[in-house]
C-alpha cells in the first residue's frame, strides 16, 4: 500500500507558486478593475447609481479580490466569483469597523481602499519571473 501511495503521489506536489493566471489575463482583469473604478467615479459625479454602485462592487472585487484569490489557481469563473465575494467581505468588515469604532469617514476609506486595490492589483499584474 505504501508503495502504491508513493506511486500515486503526483510529481507536481513540489511546492511552487506560479502566478495563477497568465500575464495577459491578469492585465485584462487589472484593466477591467480600473475601468470599473472609472465607471464608479463617473457614475458618482453624474449622480447615476446604476453606474456607480455596480462600478464600486466590481472594482472592489477585481482590484482587491482577484489578487487575493488568484493564487489558489482555480478555474476562471470560480476565481472571479470568489474574488467578488472576497471584495464584498472586505467592504463589509471595513464598514463594520468604521461604525463599531465611531470613526465614520466614508470618503477617506474609499480613497484608501481604492489606493490599496490599485497597488495590490498592479503588483499582481506585473510580469513575474515564472510565468507559464
Amino acid at each position, binding site marked *: 500500500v505504501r508503495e502504491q501511495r508513493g506511486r500515486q503521489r*503526483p510529481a*507536481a*506536489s513540489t*511546492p*511552487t*507558486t506560479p502566478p495563477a493566471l497568465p500575464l495577459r489575463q491578469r492585465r485584462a482583469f487589472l484593466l477591467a478593475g480600473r475601468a470599473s473604478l472609472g465607471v*464608479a467615479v463617473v*457614475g*458618482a*459625479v453624474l*449622480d447615476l*447609481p*446604476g453606474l*456607480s*454602485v*455596480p462600478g*464600486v*462592487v466590481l472594482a472592489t472585487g477585481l482590484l482587491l479580490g482577484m489578487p*487575493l*484569490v488568484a*493564487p*489558489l*489557481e*482555480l*478555474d476562471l*469563473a*470560480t476565481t*472571479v*466569483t*470568489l474574488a*467578488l*465575494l*472576497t471584495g*464584498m*467581505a*472586505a*467592504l*463589509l*468588515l*471595513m*464598514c*463594520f469597523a*468604521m*461604525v*463599531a469604532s*465611531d470613526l*465614520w469617514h*466614508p*470618503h477617506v*476609506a*474609499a480613497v484608501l481602499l481604492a489606493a490599496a486595490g490599485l497597488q495590490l492589483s498592479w503588483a499582481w499584474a506585473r510580469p513575474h519571473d515564472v510565468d507559464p
Partner: protein
Amino acid sequence: LTPRTWAAPAVAALLWLHAVATTTTDDLGLWGLLPALPLTWYAAVALLLVPTWLMAVSPRPPARALGVHLAALVVVLHGTAAAVYEAPRYTFTYKHIGVTEYVVQYGGIDPSIDIYHRWPGLFAAAGWLTEVTGGGDPIRFVAWSEPAFALLGSAAVLALARAVTADERTAWQAAVLSGVLNWVGQNYFSPQAVAFVLMIGVGTLVARFLTGPPGPVGRLVERLVRAVLRVRLPEPPAALPRRPTTPAQRLLVLVLVLLLHFAAVVTHQLTPYALLVQLGALAVLGVLRPLWLVVLMGGLTVLQLVPNFDYVNGRFGLFSGADPLGNATRRPDVLGVLADDKVLQGRLTLLLVLFVWLGALAGAVRRARSGQVRSALLVAVPAFAPMSILVGQAYGGEVRLRVFLFSLPWCCIAITWLWAPVSGALRSRARATTLALVAGLTALFAVSFYGADDLNEVPPDVVEAATRIYRDGQTDAAVLLVAPNFPDRYGPDYTRLGVVALPSLASEGFADRTWSPRATEADVDEVLDLMDEFALDGYLVFSSTQERYARARSIFPGGSMARLEAAVAASPSFRRVFDSPDARVYARDD
C-alpha cells in the same frame, strides 16, 4: 462570440424589455404579478430556459454560451420586479433602508435602538456605498439587490458544484437549478442575502481545499450507508483529484474562509450558525480538516453574540422550544383566513419545497448506490444539516424558509444526480424529460416568487406616506395601521416615533367587525381608545397595501375597511394630513 452564444439571450432581452414596459401593476389580484405579465415575458423565459437546460445536459456544456444564457435567465426570473415596480417590493425592505439612512445621517450606529444596529455589517456597507456614490437615497439602488444577489448566488453554486464534482454537466445543471428553485424571496436588500452568498463562498473553499478522506466516524457512517442501501460497488477513485496545495495556498484558504465567515458574522444573526452546523457535521465525520478552523469560526461567531446576548435572549429568546415540528410549522402572527387562491399558491410552493428535499435525498441515495458514497455524503450532509436548527429555533415563524435556503445550494447538486448517467451522456428522451421537469419547476417558481406580489408591491404613494410620517410626524407619536403591510422604521429618523413595531387595528381585534355603512362616532371612539394605549398623539394609516393584505386574509369583510375610513374622515377627532390614491394618513386632532 457566435450566434449560439448571443442569439437567444438577445431576442429574450428584447422580449423582456417589451414585457416590463407594457406591464401595469395598478390592480394586482390574488395571483400577484403573474396575470399582469404579458405573453412576451413568458416567451422570454421559455426562450432562455430551453437552450440553457439543453446545453447544461449536453455531453460537453459550452461554458461561455451557458454563462450568458444563465445570466440572462436569472435576470429575467429575478429582476422583473425591480424593472416593473416604481419602488422596491416588500414593505419590510424599508426598515433595512431606514437603518442604512440612519448610518448615513449620523455616521454610526446605536445598539440601543434595535437588533439591526447590533449586526450592522450590511447597513454600514450600504451606508458607505450611498455616501461614496453621490450621497443620494439608497432606495435608488436597493431594488436591484434581488437580481444582483441571484446572479452572484448562481455563480457561487457553480463554483460550489465544481468543488465537489469534476462533472461539468452537474455543475451547470446545479447552477441553473439554483436560479429556478430559489423562490424564498431572500435576495432583497437584506443582511441574509449578503450572508447567504458569503456562506456559499465558504462552502466552496472548504469543499475544494479542506476536505479529504473521512475519519473513523465518517468511515463508520460510510459502512452504515453501504449496509442500509446495500451498496456492493467499491468506492471509485476520487472523481476530482485534489491538486496538492502549497503551504502558502493552504494558509490563504484558511484566511479567506475566516474573512468571509467573519463578514457574515457581523452581518446576520442566523446564517453563521447554519454554516457552523454544516461544517461542524463535516468535521465530525473527519471529512473537513483542520478541526480547529471550525472551532475558530465558532469562536468568532460567539464573540459577536456575547455583547448582544442579553438583548437577544431578552427580546427574542435564544431557543424557542425543542419541538422541531412545532418550530417548522409555526407561522408569523397570521390574521384571518387565507383566500382560496392563496391556499392553492401555498400548496404549489410546498410541492416545490418537497421536490427539492426529496429530490436531493433521492439523488444522494442514487449516487451512493452507484458506489460513490463519499461524494454523496459530502453533499448530503451540508444539505440536510441545517434542519437541525429546527430543533431549537422558530425564528419568528420563518425558520423553515431559512432552512430551505441554507440547504438549497447543496440540494441543487444532489438533485442532478437523480438523472446523471453512470457513464456516457444522457439519452435524448432523458434530456427531454428533465427539460419538462425543469420547466414545471420554473412554473412553480413563478407562482411562488410572483404570485404573492399583490402583497409585496409597494406603490410610491405608500413610500411617500411612510416618508412623511417618519420625517414630519410628531415626536413620540404612535402610528396605528388598520391592517399590517405598511413600511415601518423608514427614514433616518425612524426612532423619533414612539412605537417602533407598528401595531394594527386588525391585530387588536377589529378585523372581524363589519362596520356599519354609517360608522358612528362611538365606533371611532373605540379606535381612539386603542390609540391611547400606545401614545396620546398618533396617526392612523390606510393604504392599498393594507387593503390587499385584508383581501388576501378575508379580514375587514364586505368593504368595512372603507366604511371605517369614511367614519374616521368624517370625525372631528381626526385630520387628514396625507392624501393620495394609495395611502391616507389621519392625525389625531382632539
